[in-house]
């Protein structure tokens, strides 16, 4: 399977809202395989969203099981999420994120600590996933791509969060 090129900002496709997948065909399965192979070939290789390869349909793939930190936390292994929706979310965590589509930049981003996601698999069968911690961050980051949202839109702080502002009252 060919490894697909990753689009990089300012490619306008990355700011588009992707449309829902409607036909669960053999063609869809081939495209999901292409996305999966592309994800596996990337450094990190723990998440990818279809728009990152120029495919503007609502498909994300997440697999944190091989990651040295994420793999030690609760996770679902390989997740292929078609038309995913977040049903509920809660808590918060701040993690420094980077993105293949925004090279050379990392920033602290605030994400929900846990998410409940309703999605379909590549055959159109419903999957409901409750995810926490590291995997939940990856799911949220990838799902944002489906709405044209990059992590840059969610940066919470320029520098360390440790310092409180001094008050001179």
């Amino acid at each position: 399977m060919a490894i697909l090129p990753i689009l990089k900002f300012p490619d306008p496709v990355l700011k588009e809202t992707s449309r829902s997948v409607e036909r669960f065909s053999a063609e869809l399965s081939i495209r999901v395989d292409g996305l999966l192979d592309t994800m596996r070939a990337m450094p990190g290789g723990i998440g990818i969203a279809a728009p990152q390869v120029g495919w503007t349909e609502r498909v994300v793939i997440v697999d944190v099981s091989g990651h040295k930190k994420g793999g030690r936390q609760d996770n679902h292994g390989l997740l292929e999420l078609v038309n995913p929706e977040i049903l509920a979310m809660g808590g918060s965590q701040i993690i420094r994120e980077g993105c293949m589509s925004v090279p050379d930049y990392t920033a602290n981003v605030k994400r929900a600590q846990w998410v409940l996601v309703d999605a379909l698999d590549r055959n159109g069968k419903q999957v409901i996933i409750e995810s926490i911690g590291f995997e939940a961050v990856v799911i949220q980051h990838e799902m944002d791509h489906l709405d044209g949202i990059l992590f840059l839109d969610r940066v919470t702080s320029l520098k360390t969060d440790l310092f409180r502002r001094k008050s001179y009252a």
Partner: protein
Amino acid sequence: MGFFSVSVVGRDRPGIVAGISRILFELGCNIEDSSSTILSGQFAMLLVVGYPGVSSPEGLDKAFGPVRSEMGLMVSVNPVNDEDLSREKGFLGAPHIISVYGADRPGIVSRVTRELADRSVNITDLNTQVVGSKERPVYVMVIEADIPDGFDMKGLEAEFESLRKELHVSISIRPIETLEL
């Protein structure tokens, strides 16, 4: 294209960035990278600017005359060699965060950074701040540092252990973990 560093320091107030950047824009300069902060009410900004067709800093320096006189800013302009420009922090090893904090006393910054320098650890960012109450001030220093590959971390930990006792501070070091997606 000539490149220049422009440093700006002055009492904080609204309009400093707008005043500086308007001058740069009107000259046709391009702001490459910039960073700024406020320390104890002083606003400080460092910019690297590109100035097409200009290689000497005099004209640029002169253009800041009005903001110097009207806004009380100190502005200094220095040429930067093309080959010294780099797009990002050039980490040779792995980025780490070192936190140091304890009751305020002289020598914390000096002693800790000396040990890092002696081990060829490059500091890529540093913040220090006095927090806590007037009666019991607490000194907090956070260092972002580039730890070279194959570095003797055990040796540094041992040195930190003796600094903890000597300076009565807490010191911790950990890698910056970035989720690459």
